[in-house]
């Protein structure tokens, strides 16, 4: 649910990073936090367990600059990837404008990726969203690992609708900004179309 505030001259959008546990969703946000100018970012809020696994969500508000005099503020959220936190994942999708699916490229995580995409589709549906219509990009993370499956193979298995795909190594930042740009562009184009 985009919030356009003509009084504060702001567009506020909500992006959710979704995907299986330990896939790198939080690392994406941490990298974005590290490289964003301090005046363009808020606090990185992490609701995590003692072992730094996401318990509820991470939250990072960032300001991407002005567009025709309107500040574009993106509220970035992650969900907990572990299967048993499904109730929490569902809550975070409330009012979402765009989704980044962070897939773990490792061969042994293929089933977890597929399960998580099916779970995303179902949870979006419960909020009245269609994965076929909502702004959505696929990030193939952990491309640097030796057991990473070939990108082409992953695309064949994980693509939902011909969405943009970004190869990434979130720990070094490779592909992280491009992924955000990809989804932010779709959200803004969608907003323009509907305005």
């Amino acid at each position, binding site marked *: *649910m985009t*919030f*356009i505030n003509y009084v504060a*001259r702001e567009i506020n959008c909500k992006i959710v990073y979704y995907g299986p546990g330990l896939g790198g969703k939080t690392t994406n946000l941490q990298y974005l936090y590290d*490289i*964003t100018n301090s005046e363009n970012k808020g606090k990185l809020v992490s609701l995590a367990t003692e072992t730094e696994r996401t318990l509820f969500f991470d939250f990072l508000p960032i300001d991407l600059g002005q567009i*025709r005099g*309107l500040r574009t503020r993106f509220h970035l959220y992650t969900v907990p990837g572990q299967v048993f936190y499904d109730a929490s994942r569902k809550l975070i999708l*409330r009012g979402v404008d765009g989704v980044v699916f962070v897939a773990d490229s490792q061969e042994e995580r293929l089933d977890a990726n597929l399960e998580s995409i099916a779970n995303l589709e179902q949870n979006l549906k419960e909020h009245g969203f269609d994965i076929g219509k909502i702004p959505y990009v696929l990030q193939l993370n952990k491309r640097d690992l030796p057991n990473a499956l070939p990108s082409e193979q992953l695309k064949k298995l994980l693509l939902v609708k011909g969405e943009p795909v970004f190869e990434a190594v979130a720990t070094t930042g490779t592909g992280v900004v491009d992924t955000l740009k990809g989804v932010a562009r779709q959200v803004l184009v969608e907003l323009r179309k509907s305005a």
Partner: protein
Amino acid sequence: MNPSNIVLYEAEYLRLKSILVMTQRDLRADLVLLIDRSGHQIAAEGPAHGIDMTALSSLAAANIAATDGLARLVGEPEFSILYHQGKHRSIHISDVAKRFSLVVVFDESVALGMVRLRVKRATAYLEEILRSFLRKTEAVPTATKAAPGSAPPIYFTDEDIDKLFSSLKPGS
């Protein structure tokens, strides 16, 4: 316009703000904040220095969402009020028109009963304003929505979008 999007123009903002100002003054609250259920801040009033309102809005919305989930688990349609009591500061969160929430941060000098009373009155006013403004948002095409003198409907090009992201400095 996606009917679930919220577009706030000055006239509605001023009406909403006046209710928050009244509530904040009546209670001498640290902060009175109106948010939507996605965690976006709509309007705020109060001297609460040092509170990160963006983070507060996001956490309050998540708190409400989690509490809604808890309510459903025990067979309740909702828990319409959340109250967190601290040693010096407390937070009262209540539902407004099912799509928004009113967050009041107050210190130990303010009685909870008074907060509840003022919040109830403010909620009635806010609901009236928000319902009429949501009806307008949903019923009128955006192109005709802007009142004379207000901001035009949103318009931007692909180049405008390309110019964004200058605040991100990969590798720095």
